[in-house]
């Protein structure tokens, strides 16, 4: 689920950007830029994965680990959904952005997301849907991971060869 949301968001913006790049970049230059992008996505995915894993480790087993797939999926969907909302709000091109950069609203949002995660995944049918959805989304992992490994090799060659 994590890779699905993170990679898809970036790839959508990539296709938005691509027409302007095609004006002056060749295929290999676009490919190299994409390699940096996918490596970043990989790092982001690992960072996000740390959150449910951390919760599973520190919370009592019954709270999180026993329902890891459902609660983890719910947490990721709410959390990354909120990030998408923030992404639209935090464009500093505007001189006086309406968005508040204070940490309190972010902390409140995090608590609400956690509460929603625990409440919603208690509902049986929703839990089953989340598990089924998560199971089917695994296919994206098989696509994104090999591509990320190749990208990582490209970046390493660019930086150290």
């Amino acid at each position: 689920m994590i890779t699905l949301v993170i990679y898809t968001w970036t790839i959508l913006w990539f296709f938005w950007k691509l027409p302007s790049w095609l004006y002056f970049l060749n295929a290999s230059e676009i490919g190299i830029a994409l390699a940096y992008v996918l490596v970043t996505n990989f790092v982001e995915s690992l960072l996000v994965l740390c959150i449910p894993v951390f919760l599973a480790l520190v919370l009592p087993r019954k709270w999180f680990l026993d329902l890891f797939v459902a609660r983890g999926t719910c947490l990721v969907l709410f959390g990354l959904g909120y990030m998408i909302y923030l992404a639209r709000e935090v464009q500093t091109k505007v001189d006086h952005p309406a968005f508040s950069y204070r940490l309190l609203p972010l902390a409140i949002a995090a608590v609400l997301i956690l509460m929603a995660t625990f409440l919603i995944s208690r509902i049986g049918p929703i839990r089953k849907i989340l598990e089924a959805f998560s199971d089917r989304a695994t296919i994206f992992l098989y696509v994104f991971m090999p591509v990320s490994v190749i990208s990582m090799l490209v970046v390493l060659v660019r930086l150290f060869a």
Partner: protein
Amino acid sequence: MPKFNRRDFLKIIPAAVSAFMLSNLASRRSFLNNGQSLSSPNVVIIVFDAMTARNLSLYGYRRKTTPHFERFAQRATVYNAHYSTAPFTTPGTASLLTGVYPWTHRAINEAGLIARNMVERNLFHAVSNKYYRLAFSQNMWPNYFFGQFHQNIDKIMPPESFSIIEQVQGSRFSQDLVNSYRAFDDFLFQDGTPPASLVLGVTEKIMLGRALLQAKERDYPIGVPRAGNYPIFFQLKDVLAGVKTTIEKLVTPSLAYLHCFPPHDPYRPTKKFTRLFADDWSPEPKPDHILGDHLQKQQLDNRRQAYDEYIANLDFEFGKIINALAKQGILESTYIIITSDHGELFERGTSSHVSPLMYEGVIHIPLIISAPGQKTRQDVYTPTSSLDLLPTIARLTNNEIPAWAEGELLPLLGGKEDANRSIFMMDAKKNPAFAPLSTGSYVVRKGRYKLIYYKGYPQYKGKGHFELYDLDNDPEELNDLYLKNPDLGRPLQDELLGKIEAVNSKYEHIQQ
């Protein structure tokens, strides 16, 4: 065994210390040997982004925007009809650095790159590796060129140097600047649209916003100056002080290219300069242009006032640099070149340089060159181009003028005034870089006349549109001679169309 007393020992110490110091110096870089020799003088190019000559009192502007530039000009050569090859940073800077026209180097799009087979043709290469070569640009786009030229540059200073908030990511990957700037700063952490990196991009934006909240307390009532859409926020005094320190630390001989973002939009002067020109003065109105932005006159006047105030602020800080450099004697041994990459326009409904319009404001830029030890002002009135800097600097640094350079030696620096020379400018940012030039604005300046050719714009139903001005008698470009007498512009028209056709012939296979 000879006697070795205390007096002998004391005699040996200074000699030993001197020998040690000399060997140390020799092991550094060979250019230190030249000392202050004028056979290899330091050359410093300071580019102020988007600074039109039209709004500088140095060039006769009504508002007193540049008293310190005028003071500097008293010991320099002032080029009064100097042109950028293009109206925005990418092609304008690329021409300055490569000495060729945009239709040759092909960096014609925003954030574009120089043709890959031409990256060896650049200013840093032209002065050879006898010189220590340093490059700095607050504007991100020239940094792509630095990345392309990296084999010819000894030091590339990151764009966020001298900033109060710096969150440029690409600079961290100095081995691959071009691609890392593209991936991170122009995409994953892009501004103006949601960041393409969902987690790190959003986190970076939140951190940037929090840093800005802190910075609001400073001396900038309109906001802290920033470099375009990139996360580089700075104070004018810090940037100019940084430029000064960089020049002071240069070894001899060095070539330094220092590209400062001010007075580029957003115009954000300090409290002292805000409303300095709230004088109700307004220039003569000019008719709205079909390709312009259709702004009201009051909007144009407000923008012009803010721009003028920002220039005055910049001028004030520039004055401090000149004082310091003069005091230290650096002006006696260094060529200081002040110029810009393009101008800015406040007329015909347009207030920017991001439009197809090619009037004087957007292409007429300052060029002031102070030669080592120069004490008096000299003026050149014949048209010159930003292309001319590369061959001139090659000559000043005792290097061969490259055969590929399309410019000429600047008058009074080895070249001659040529009133019949043709100078070209162009804007084709919507045109693919490696395809025939279809849509764009093209200009030729020759003698007193200037012909503008708007090609392929839908507003003209795809047909060509020409305008012709006599700049000697009509410097404000109000009287279009082409309407009354197209034959007058025919020679210029034939020359310009011939040039475009010749350039396009190289790319015809792409069209097919």
